[in-house]
């Protein structure tokens, strides 16, 4: 049983206002049947230091990833995980986390790969909840286990692989990393190995829009006009055209994916989760360095 969506005038201009809830709404609806609040953080211990009362923890690293292959868990794994967490297929899931919801957006994107229907982000994330002086608890909720069905993960609509990106070259790509990562400058001393990839730079034609541009100073999403100015006017995205976002491992680009898909309403948005750690180490893929997007290579 899902919970009705928040009627919040601040969200109404977004393409899919039902995908967002405010901290106030979460506070009012805590404990409602059919609502599960999920915390998903970069830092694996933050939940233990205190979380929204009744919230369950889902850790991207240790729970949503396949422990062996570089991939997400499969349908059986997801069913086992959500059953253990006490989440039903028809529950409303509200996800929040640290760092303006990077990892919360990542978790939401993975939930979406399994077609969990009603999954929302709490605008502003963990920091906003704490800044507003709202209650935290260290108690682990004991939710009774559920029987979440095994649903086959569907990557086709929301996820891009390296080959998809190669075929996509020439069409809109958004690089959401920092400008230094985009241009390929070395940011650490030469004696230390660069983490993650063998080459620096960006995918040809990708436009640089660091993920944080979508976030207002108070940690919430910017309004729809501001977002439109950044992505449509600034980065040249046009409605109806497919777009792929990437970062280093796919977590910051999940944040941008959420903005493009749910707040601005682009219909074909994919997250390339292989991102720079794959592209920057792959053999014979084109790379551009410097501040300019560069040209798409001629097709052979």
């Amino acid at each position, binding site marked *: 049983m899902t919970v009705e969506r928040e009627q919040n005038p601040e969200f109404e201009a977004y393409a899919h206002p039902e995908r967002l809830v405010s901290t106030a709404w979460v506070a009012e609806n805590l404990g409602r049947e059919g609502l599960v609040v999920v915390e998903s953080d970069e*830092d694996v*211990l933050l939940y233990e*230091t205190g979380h929204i009362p009744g919230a369950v923890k889902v850790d991207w*690293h*240790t729970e949503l990833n396949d422990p062996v292959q570089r991939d997400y868990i499969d349908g059986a794994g997801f069913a086992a995980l959500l059953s253990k967490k006490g989440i039903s297929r028809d529950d409303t899931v509200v996800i929040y986390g*640290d760092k303006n919801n990077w990892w919360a957006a990542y978790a939401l994107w993975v939930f979406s790969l399994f077609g969990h229907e009603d999954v929302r982000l709490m605008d502003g994330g963990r920091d906003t909840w704490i800044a507003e002086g709202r209650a935290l608890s260290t108690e682990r909720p004991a939710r009774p286990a559920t029987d979440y069905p095994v649903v086959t993960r569907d990557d086709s609509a929301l996820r891009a692989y390296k080959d998809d990106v190669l075929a996509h070259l020439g069409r809109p790509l958004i690089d959401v990393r920092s400008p230094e990562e985009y241009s390929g400058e070395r*940011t650490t001393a030469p004696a*230390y190995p660069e983490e993650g990839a063998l080459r620096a730079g960006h995918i040809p034609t990708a436009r640089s829009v660091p993920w944080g541009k979508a976030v207002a100073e108070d940690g919430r999403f910017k309004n729809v006009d501001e977002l439109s100015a950044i992505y449509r006017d600034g980065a040249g995205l046009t409605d109806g055209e497919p777009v792929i976002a990437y970062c280093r491992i796919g977590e910051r680009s999940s944040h941008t994916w959420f903005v493009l898909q749910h707040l601005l309403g682009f219909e074909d948005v994919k997250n390339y989760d292989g991102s720079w750690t794959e592209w920057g180490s792959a053999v014979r893929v084109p790379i551009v360095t410097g501040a300019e997007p560069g040209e798409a290579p001629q097709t052979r």
Partner: protein
Amino acid sequence: MSDSTLTGQAAEIRDEFLDLDLSSRLELLLEFSNELPALPERLADHPELLERVAECQAPVFIVVEVDDGLVTMFAQAPPEAPTTRGFASILAQTLNGLTVDEALALPDDYPQMLGLSKAVSPLRLNGMSGMLQRAKRQLRARVGR
């Protein structure tokens, strides 16, 4: 549990972790995190003396000193990064009071011996490995090796 390559504090801390189940290991990591002391004033006023650990996503800075032949490591990391603080605290408590030779003999894969890979993820543990390597690098520089 009886790994001959670890001795003293390092072995004690490893056993402290291995004696616990997975979720309790996270709690223990949080206890270490809470135990990380603030920087002494002489270092707090001179952030340029500390080295940023780039392998950690959270901003963490360390400095290793040698006094009378004995090692002390100091670290600074924000409270919003309890895992990184926990890593720093483990290393500080492991290295503190060791001779330079003992500290340099600490195996590079010490972070992987604490039974944290499943609780924390190998990727996150890389941050602790980076921290250890930088601490050793600083030590070698201090004693000219």
